[in-house]
């Protein structure tokens, strides 16, 4: 097992190197640079001033030198400073990621609490009214884009209820209630979408598993329905559900950008988006590298979870 993890981590290195080259080049291909973005509001600036600022930020050097300089920093855990506001990139990413993670955790909790029971009942009572309601729930969640649900929700709250959640983010340990109000709506919206995807997957996986011989054997032994479903079937039925959940976790880090924008939450997605707008090379590079690493680690974790759930799966 240890060897397997090590091999997977080693294989991730070339992927991350290519990701780093790709994002380093792409962000420099965006027309304009951070100096132009910073000075766009300050009126006339002489070409000498522009050149001086570029040289201070080090973005006038040969791109290869810039890449090696930045890359060697990343290896040492130093992601550099933001070109836009001079803040250290890594600590900012950690802070911003906490916000996105908080939403992600709430969303996943919502999804697990709704999707797994719903998917299981839907499969066990196939073609009953519960099944139809569950499938309608899933199709609706899959069809409606996040931003659309968010817009409708805000419209409903402001027009009908005459109340809007407080926009912006509050530290959970200082203002727990405001923090909860700020993140609960985006979390529920994402959670609904996740529940839809996962409930559908749970239903389909359970339908397959319930027809397996070992489930029939368990029933033939005279076990109660609940025991057969929960102890025997669900365990195997969960494998594809975990894959789906895992892929959603990695999506969440960057994919929340739209909801973060709508609800004014300073999460990871918005940090990246603002950095693209500001041509803040170091921040874009840093966030993309961190998100790619999280994706790789989450995938590894999913593969290891399979072995925990299904003892037949062994990695060597």
């Amino acid at each position, binding site marked *: 097992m240890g060897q397997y993890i090590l091999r997977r981590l080693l294989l991730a290195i070339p992927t991350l190197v290519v990701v780093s080259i790709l994002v380093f080049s792409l962000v420099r291909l965006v027309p304009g640079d951070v100096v132009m973005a910073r000075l766009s509001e300050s009126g006339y600036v002489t070409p000498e001033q522009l050149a001086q600022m570029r040289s201070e930020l080090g973005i006038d050097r040969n791109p290869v030198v810039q890449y090696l300089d930045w890359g060697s920093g990343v290896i040492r855990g130093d992601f550099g400073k933001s070109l836009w506001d001079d803040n250290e990139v890594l600590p900012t990413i950690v802070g911003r990621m906490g916000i996105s993670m908080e939403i992600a955790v709430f969303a996943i909790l919502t999804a697990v609490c709704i999707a797994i029971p719903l998917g299981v009942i839907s499969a066990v009572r196939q073609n009953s009214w519960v099944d139809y309601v569950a499938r309608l729930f899933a*199709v609706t969640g899959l069809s409606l884009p996040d931003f659309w649900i968010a817009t409708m929700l805000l419209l409903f709250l402001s027009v009908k209820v005459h109340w809007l959640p407080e926009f912006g983010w509050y530290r959970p340990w200082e203002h727990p209630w405001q923090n909860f109000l700020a993140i609960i709506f985006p979390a529920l919206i994402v959670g609904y979408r996740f529940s839809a995807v996962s409930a559908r997957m749970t239903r389909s996986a359970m339908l397959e598993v319930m027809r397996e011989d070992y489930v029939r054997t368990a029933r033939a032994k005279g076990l109660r329905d609940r025991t057969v479903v929960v102890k025997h079937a669900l365990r195997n039925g969960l494998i594809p559900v975990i894959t789906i959940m895992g892929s959603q976790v990695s999506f969440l880090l960057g994919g929340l950008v739209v909801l973060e924008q709508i609800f004014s939450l300073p999460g990871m997605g918005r940090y990246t988006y603002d950095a693209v707008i500001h041509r803040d090379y170091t921040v874009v590079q840093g966030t993309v590298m961190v998100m790619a690493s999280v994706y790789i680690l989450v995938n590894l974790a999913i593969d290891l979870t399979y072995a925990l759930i299904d003892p037949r799966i062994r990695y060597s």
Partner: protein
Amino acid sequence: MSVAAGQYTAEAEAVEQYERQAARNPWLLLWGRLRKKRLAMLSLAIVLVIYGAGIAAPLLAPYSYTEQNLERGLEGPSADHWLGTDRLGRDMLSRVLYSARTTLIVTVAVVLSGTLILGNFLGLLAGYRGGWIDSLIMRVGDVFASLPGLPMLILLNATLLPRVLQWVGWVEDHTPISGLSSSGTASYFTVFGALALFSWVGTARLIRAQVLQLRERDFILAAQATGGSTWHIIWRHLMPNVSFLIILEVSAVLGSVAGSEILLTWFGVGVQPPNPSFGAMLFEGSGARTFQAHPHLLLVPAAVVTSLMFAFALLGDALNDAVRGR
């Protein structure tokens, strides 16, 4: 009695004939199964109507999508403007028809290039050839999969759009082709290019996994033994065996690509104004005050988008069931 027996024989013959045809043409079988699902047929009809409206937009639209009439802005539905007008007095019906055209162009282009050509071909090649070709294709896929989708799409659009505009300008200056910039081709190209770059990985992985099993089968060994070339085997022997997977993948990707185009445009980095897109229409109509005063601005595009997305999801489900024989 004899009549009943005769009926039975006729029915059995019809079933047998159908099965014989189905054995020769599995698509017929699939269509037969799909035709029995009422929801699937309704969804297919919705997709066809919206896509058909997109194709026929220049014929159907009563006005040009850019034609402004500031004196008649923000009007509700009337005999002149069936679905009302927007802030600039542009006809909403024409905007909706042309937005359907945008969705049609982007989804078809992405699905054709990303899913059907790139994803399918790379998946077949990686699975069948194995070795370094497989490793290379799958590692490149890993890189794309590990990149955060939405921020990368925003970055790619920011990078590509000015370059595509430049390139389109060059093409217009140096060739007899004209009207590319004004028709919005550049922003369509950008959105489609960025989406296609990311849409192939899932398909390629799926097809590869299937081909890995298929290539060990006797009929492939036989084809190899008789000297079939790689292209011949991929095209003639593997392709027909993964075609159902491709259908499922296309039905799943269509909805998500349409959603991504709308989202990117809503976010301001997709199809650029004045080219119409549901994303832009939803954005314009979504303020609380705007909605209270002029609900048609939001309800019209929202109704079309919601029906289209529902139709894609239901059709995908039904196709999945039909392929699996449920």
